[in-house]
Every structure is written in structure tokens, then in C-alpha cells.
């Protein structure tokens, strides 16, 4: 597996299933959109996607939380850019990009689950953001496995 995940070099010689590339493209788009939205429409994302009652917070807390959201929102955009670079020029990096995106998503969710916000006390209704992230997790795990699954190449077999 390490040959597929960490090959000797990253180039455009991709050996996984083509479907993984088709999955990665929309994921990269969604991640880029989520990142840009978080930076540019921060208050809207906090209120609606993540269902945090920002209006009830003190001014100081609101400012600090908005700032941290924006700083954090830059990173999904950058990960999306890495995915774009992989899709265009270094397709053998595809499994690693899937793994990075999946680990990032799962770790974030795990942090939240370890100490959920008190205002989200049961009955827990997942926010829109959480639902999008659950769907992303499934797609990322599927894409990761597909990208490591070598497709049959008649040229290599005949060689």
C-alpha cells in the first residue's frame, strides 16, 4: 500500500480507479467553496451551516470567534488547491490527498464529538455543516480505497 500512498515520486502516472478522480473533482470544488464561504460570509456560515447562536454571544466573543473561523477557513481552500494540483499534474498523489482530506475531516468531527457544544444538547439534530461533512467523509473514504485499487492496464500486462 505504501507504494500507492507514498510512491517514489509523484507524477501523472495514476494507477488507481478512474472513478476516484471523478469523486475528487467535486470534493475539491465543495471544499474550495466551503473555505471561501467561511472566509467571506463568516457570520452566515456560523449562524446557518454550523447553527451556532452567535447573536447571543458577547461582542468580544463574537469578534474572536469570527476571526478564528476565518483563519481556519483558509485551510480547506488550501487543501482544495492541493487536490486541484494533484488532479491536474500529479495524479499519483491522489490517494494521499484523499487521506489528508479524510483525516482532517474525521479529526475535526472527533474533536467536536469529544466535547459537543452545550447548546447542541440532546435531542441532537445535526447542523447542515455536519451533514455535509458526514457525506464528505463517506465520499473521501470511498475515493481513498478506489484510488489505491490498481486498475488493469493491458499495456503493462502485455509488456
Amino acid at each position: 500500500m505504501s507504494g500507492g500512498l507514498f510512491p517514489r515520486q509523484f507524477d501523472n502516472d495514476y494507477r488507481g480507479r478512474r472513478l476516484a478522480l471523478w469523486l475528487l473533482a467535486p470534493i475539491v470544488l465543495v471544499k474550495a467553496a466551503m473555505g471561501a464561504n467561511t472566509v467571506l460570509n463568516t457570520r452566515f456560515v456560523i449562524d446557518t451551516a454550523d447553527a451556532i447562536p452567535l447573536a447571543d454571544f458577547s461582542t468580544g466573543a463574537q469578534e474572536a470567534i469570527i476571526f478564528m473561523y476565518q483563519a481556519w477557513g483558509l485551510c480547506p481552500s488550501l487543501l482544495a488547491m492541493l487536490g486541484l494540483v494533484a488532479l491536474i499534474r500529479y495524479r499519483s498523489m491522489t490517494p494521499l490527498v484523499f487521506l489528508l482530506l479524510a483525516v482532517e475531516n474525521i479529526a475535526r468531527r472527533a474533536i467536536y464529538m469529544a466535547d459537543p457544544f452545550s447548546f447542541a444538547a440532546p435531542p441532537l439534530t445535526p447542523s447542515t455543516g455536519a451533514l455535509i461533512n458526514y457525506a464528505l467523509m463517506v465520499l473521501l473514504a470511498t475515493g481513498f480505497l478506489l484510488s489505491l485499487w490498481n486498475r488493469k492496464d493491458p499495456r503493462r500486462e502485455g509488456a
Partner: protein
Amino acid sequence: MMDRLFPARFDNDYRGHPAALALLGAFLLLKAFASINQIGVNPWWSSRAVLQGVEAVPLRAFGSTEADVALTLFAWWGVEGLAWALLGVMALFRYRAMVPLYFLIAAATKIADQAIVEASPLTGMLGTGATPPYAAIALLLIGLALSLTPARRRDNGA
């Protein structure tokens, strides 16, 4: 220059100045340490203490819900930082041809971070009003320049 940033393949054939690798190593150590503290997995330094002490966020003045949200966001921010640090470690040890691109991305991130700081109404917390980010941006740009500077080959004239 585009060929150095986006070569045909990312392998371990690094052609830049060795000082850039040392600079990247130091940057990654700091980044990983900061991210681990943000996530709250450092048993000797809680993320609450870091957010209050280092970032000067007055958590005591926040309500418990506000503090919860701030700490969770701080940890999420740390996860992203750690993911990037891990990618940097891979570049440093296995794919050194990726080092110039890594410096470019790291510098661009710091510059964007600083733009958010400048636009924020915050004062005196989370890096607002501090000079270290500018020093970090300068160091990353120096690293980028060094990684793009061809190193003298030792086997010249051999």
C-alpha cells in the same frame, strides 16, 4: 521558475540551497508544536492555557458556551495546521522537489492570515497588533528564494 515550483515529478532530487531545508525543518517543528498545543493533546499545556496566555483571548470573560466554541475552533484550526505540517514533513524527507511549492503555499497562507488580522476589529489578541507574523512571512519568502536558488554542485570539475 515554474519548472522549479511545478516540476514534472515530485521526487527526492532537490536542487535548491541546503539552508532552505534547515529553515523548513525549523518551521515545521514550530508549526507542529503550535498545532499540537492548539488541539489540546499536549499533557503539560492545555489549549485553554494557550488560548488565554499566548493568544491573549480573555476566556474568563466569556460565557461557558462562548468559551466552548472558541476552544473547539482553536482545536479545528490546529488540526488544519497539523495536516499541513505532516505534508511538509513528507516534502522534507521523501519529496524534496516539493520544497519550493511548500514554501510558496506556507508564505501565501501567512500573508492571507495577516490580511484577515488587518481586517479584524480585534486588538491585542490572536496575533493582532504583533510583529512576529511579518518576521515569519519574511523567513518563508527567504526559504522560497533559497529553495529556488540552485546549489553549487560538489562534483563540479570532477
